[in-house]
């Protein structure tokens, strides 16, 4: 048993201990379990929202993108920042409405705003389909981290199963408080690890940050700016805008906002979170440094850049700290995803079979039974593993973005969008995403001779445009009193 293994095991025990301890003094009723009885102050909400920024996807993915693609990685910095600005304006009214109606999930919000249980079911299905691959990805990241940082001593399947058990345990016992508490430790650790690695590696190998970039710019001209085609400036702009719109539309981020005890929590967080995101810079530095130190990783293996350079540079105990931090970046978001997926299933799907006649107690009971079930579905997919998971995740992102138009319009005092319009828009957008993903459609294939600028635009943009067209047309047709298909003015 080496030092790395001991430290990784410690981080798992720490997560479990904290996650379980978070329950103390709170009876786990539905509103407590899912949204902490709406009692979280600025710091706790900050931790929950910021925690979403630093997942395994950023830990391994941001360094991997910097390593494999260069400048396109910057989009990660840009979309989060814009997402937080949107949050300043959008989340307070969302939160106010959720508190008035005692809502606990994203489908609740849509169903209540549009007075349509059917829309709630649709949003729940979209949410669950988007969340499962996200969970699988966290588990896959966990497996890669543990396997590498334990120098191969722990096989992937064992790592995933231990991870799934630990997360299930503290989610069932402590609900969202467990996520918040473990998230606090995770963020402290990742800031220390990111800054330490991001400064040490460039200084050690290349003599500083600027010399590193100078050497990289010399070795790979064009790597540090956007390519003329492919991942071009048009790709950057469209991807940043799309993902920024989708940022708070993830079901677990959306309902995490319900935990706030007042709406100024979001406004204060919008000031701090952009700067807090700059920790990503140091993760980029790690990826850029690795290009020159451990070259040759291709495709999915670029996600290994951070771990590879760490193993090559440090003694086992430091690798253990990095590995332990990596494990927490998987477990914490994993727990929030798990909690949300189980709640959506129990409340917004099963609960809808007999609407209004399922008690809150039975929803909680069912959700808690579903937590380990969902966890093991995720664990199974992670172990069975395939490249399609990444494709599924990208699809998930495009899915949740389709919820944005109906959400933002519902905040207007006089919403012109009808429930039929909202359902049509979301359904059209989601179907378009599925079609584009499965057929590998890009703008370039749809319009081979189109202008260069348009060819690189993120295909998700077109799904969103179809969505908006669907919303407009159907809302006009079904508008109460005026529309051709309206069911009378009494609507």
């Amino acid at each position, binding site marked *: 048993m080496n030092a790395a293994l001991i430290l990784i095991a410690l981080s798992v025990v720490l997560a479990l201990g904290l996650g379980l301890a978070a329950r103390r003094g709170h009876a786990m009723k539905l509103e407590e379990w899912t949204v902490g009885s709406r009692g979280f102050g600025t710091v706790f909400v900050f931790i929950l929202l910021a925690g979403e920024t630093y997942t395994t996807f950023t830990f391994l993915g941001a360094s991997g993108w910097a390593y494999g693609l260069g*400048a396109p990685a*910057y989009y990660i*910095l*840009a979309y989060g*920042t*814009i997402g*937080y*600005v949107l949050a*300043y*304006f959008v989340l*307070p009214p969302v939160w106010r409405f959720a508190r008035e109606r005692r809502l606990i999930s994203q489908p609740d919000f849509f169903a209540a705003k549009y007075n349509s249980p059917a829309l709630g079911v649709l949003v729940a299905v979209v949410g669950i389909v988007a969340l499962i691959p996200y969970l699988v990805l966290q588990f896959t990241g966990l497996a890669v981290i543990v396997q590498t940082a334990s120098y191969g001593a722990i096989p992937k399947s064992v790592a995933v199963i231990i991870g799934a058990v630990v997360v299930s345990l503290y989610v069932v016992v402590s609900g969202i408080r467990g996520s918040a508490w473990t998230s606090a430790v995770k963020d402290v650790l990742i800031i220390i690890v990111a800054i330490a690695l991001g400064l040490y590696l460039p200084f050690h190998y290349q003599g*500083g*940050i*600027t010399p590193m*970039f*100078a050497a990289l*710019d010399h070795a790979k001209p*064009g*790597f*540090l*700016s*956007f390519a003329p085609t492919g991942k071009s*400036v048009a790709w*950057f*702009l469209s991807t*940043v805008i799309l993902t920024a719109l989708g940022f708070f539309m993830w079901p677990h981020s959306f309902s995490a906002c319900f935990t706030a005890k*007042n*709406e*100024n929590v979001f*406004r*204060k967080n*919008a*000031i*701090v979170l*952009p*700067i807090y*995101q*700059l920790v990503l*810079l140091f993760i*980029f530095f790690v990826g850029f440094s690795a290009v020159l130190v451990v070259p040759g990783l291709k495709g999915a293996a670029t996600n290994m850049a951070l771990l590879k350079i760490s193993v090559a540079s440090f003694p086992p105990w430091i690798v253990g700290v990095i590995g332990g931090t990596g494990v927490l970046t998987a477990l914490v978001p994993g727990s929030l995803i798990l909690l949300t997926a189980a709640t959506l299933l129990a409340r917004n799907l099963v609960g809808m079979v007999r609407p209004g006649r399922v008690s809150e107690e039975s929803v909680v009971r069912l959700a808690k039974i579903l937590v380990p079930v969902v966890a093991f579905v995720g664990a199974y997919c992670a172990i069975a593993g395939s490249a399609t998971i990444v494709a599924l995740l990208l699809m998930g992102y495009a899915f949740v973005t389709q919820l944005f138009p109906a959400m933002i319009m519902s905040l207007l005092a006089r919403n012109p969008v009808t429930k039929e319009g909202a359902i049509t828009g979301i359904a059209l957008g989601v179907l378009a995403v599925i079609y584009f993903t499965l057929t590998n459609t890009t703008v370039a294939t749809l319009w081979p001779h189109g202008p260069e600028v348009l060819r690189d635009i993120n295909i998700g943009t077109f799904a969103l445009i179809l969505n908006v067209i669907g919303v407009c047309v159907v809302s006009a047709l079904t508008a109460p009193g005026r529309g051709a298909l309206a069911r009378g003015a009494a609507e």
Partner: protein
Amino acid sequence: MKHIGYLAIVPILGLLLGPVIHNSSTPFILGMPFLLGWMVIWVVLVSVAMAVIYALDPARVTTDPEHPRR
């Protein structure tokens, strides 16, 4: 200051327009390649803009639990 929220558009445009105006790694800013340094500056300016908006936002005053409806 009801319309102070529009101030947020400025740094967002700044952030996004960098690669449109000058898609290059040079000159280095803050010791980093042009695009990265540019974005770091604008991310910080987003935070500054949000702080200004918060300070002048009438919605904050009316909903602040410690200073109810002045």
